[in-house]
């Protein structure tokens, strides 16, 4: 998406944006409203006979929120999660979030394992099944953490951070599954070379065991890949809208928490 031409108020809008500690979609809505009002009001002052400089100055004075108004806007638009956890100190909040994440990841792992036990796939599993399940649970934990950060906590200081590890994790789970199938096949071939008479028993057994391994790896990788796609699309949409409004700015683009004025 191409950035719009630099407007008379772009610099002011960038300054306001840096002071709004809100999710990007909320920031964009507030800035779009402000942008239109600034342009319309300065146009009105111009039509009344003011010089362009005076028209812009008076519009800025009337409409650009001061720190108190910005603080109030921040409170009004704060995500529900921030309002609910506002009383906790940063340290306690971080501890709580980490515990919740570990708990949820463990729950996912238990749910995966119990599903497989019910499906009778752990009776004679591939040695690679547990590593695949473990890395899959880790991957789902990363997905949950990213979704939580973007859509519950509304922390958009660096929205694209953590997306590549999700994609890489999906690839790693799939590679682990495929690698496991290949290693199992190699081991089967080695056994059959020594005792070919066991082919009738060992080959179907390998097929069942490794098709389960491959299915689990593919499902987990697909889930991770799909989550990555959704996150990337959303980040690209909001970043595009922001770029369209404010243009590329080396001081604040890409998003960098160090530029934020709280």
């Amino acid at each position, binding site marked *: 998406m191409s950035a*719009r031409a630099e407007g008379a108020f772009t610099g002011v809008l960038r300054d306001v944006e840096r002071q709004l500690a809100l999710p990007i979609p909320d920031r964009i*809505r*507030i800035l*779009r*409203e*402000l942008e*239109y*009002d*600034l342009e*319309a*009001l300065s146009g*009105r002052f111009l039509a009344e006979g003011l010089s362009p400089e005076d028209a812009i100055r008076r*519009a800025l*004075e*009337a*409409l*650009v*929120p*001061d720190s*108190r*108004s*910005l603080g*109030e*806007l921040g409170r*009004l*638009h704060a995500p529900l999660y921030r309002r609910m956890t506002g009383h906790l100190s940063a340290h306690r909040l971080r501890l709580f979030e980490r515990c919740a994440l570990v708990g949820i990841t463990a729950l996912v792992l238990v749910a995966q394992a119990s599903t497989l036990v019910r499906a009778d796939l752990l009776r004679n599993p591939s040695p690679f099944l547990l590593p695949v399940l473990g890395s899959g649970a880790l991957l789902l934990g990363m997905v949950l953490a990213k979704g939580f950060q973007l859509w519950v906590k509304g922390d958009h200081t660096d929205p694209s951070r953590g997306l590549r590890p999700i994609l890489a994790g999906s690839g790693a789970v799939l590679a682990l599954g495929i690698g496991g199938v290949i290693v199992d096949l190699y081991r089967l071939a080695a056994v059959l070379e020594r005792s070919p008479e066991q082919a009738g028993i060992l080959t179907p057994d390998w097929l069942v065991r490794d098709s389960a391994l491959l299915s689990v790896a593919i499902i987990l990788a697909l889930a991770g890949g799909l989550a990555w796609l959704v996150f990337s699309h959303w980040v690209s949409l909001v970043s595009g809208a922001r770029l*369209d*409004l404010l243009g590329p700015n080396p001081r604040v683009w890409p998003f960098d928490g160090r530029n934020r004025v709280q």
Partner: protein
Amino acid sequence: MTERDFDVQAFARDINELLVLSTLQDGPKHGYQIGLDVESSSNGLFRFRHGTLYPILHRLEDEGLIRGSWSGDGGRRRKAYSLTATGERHLRGETNRVQEIVSRLMQLLQGPGEVRA
């Protein structure tokens, strides 16, 4: 007047909100138009500066007293506000309350003997 505690800061905030609501009785308006109309209809007595209008507008929208709607195409989008039915009822009720407070205040200022029990 109701028996609830009177808070001067909250009263000032209520006045600002009522000014916005009353301006929107004429029809939907953009934020800057609301500010201009409040200023011109009060002969400059009430004026929103330094973006104080936006928290008021967003709070009223959040409470369902006004409705914000976006229009425009391409990158240039604008937001206009209109009064909701709840907002109209709120405006009527609060106007009566403010009237009563001001009338009590005037009685106080004119002399303690005239204050109602």
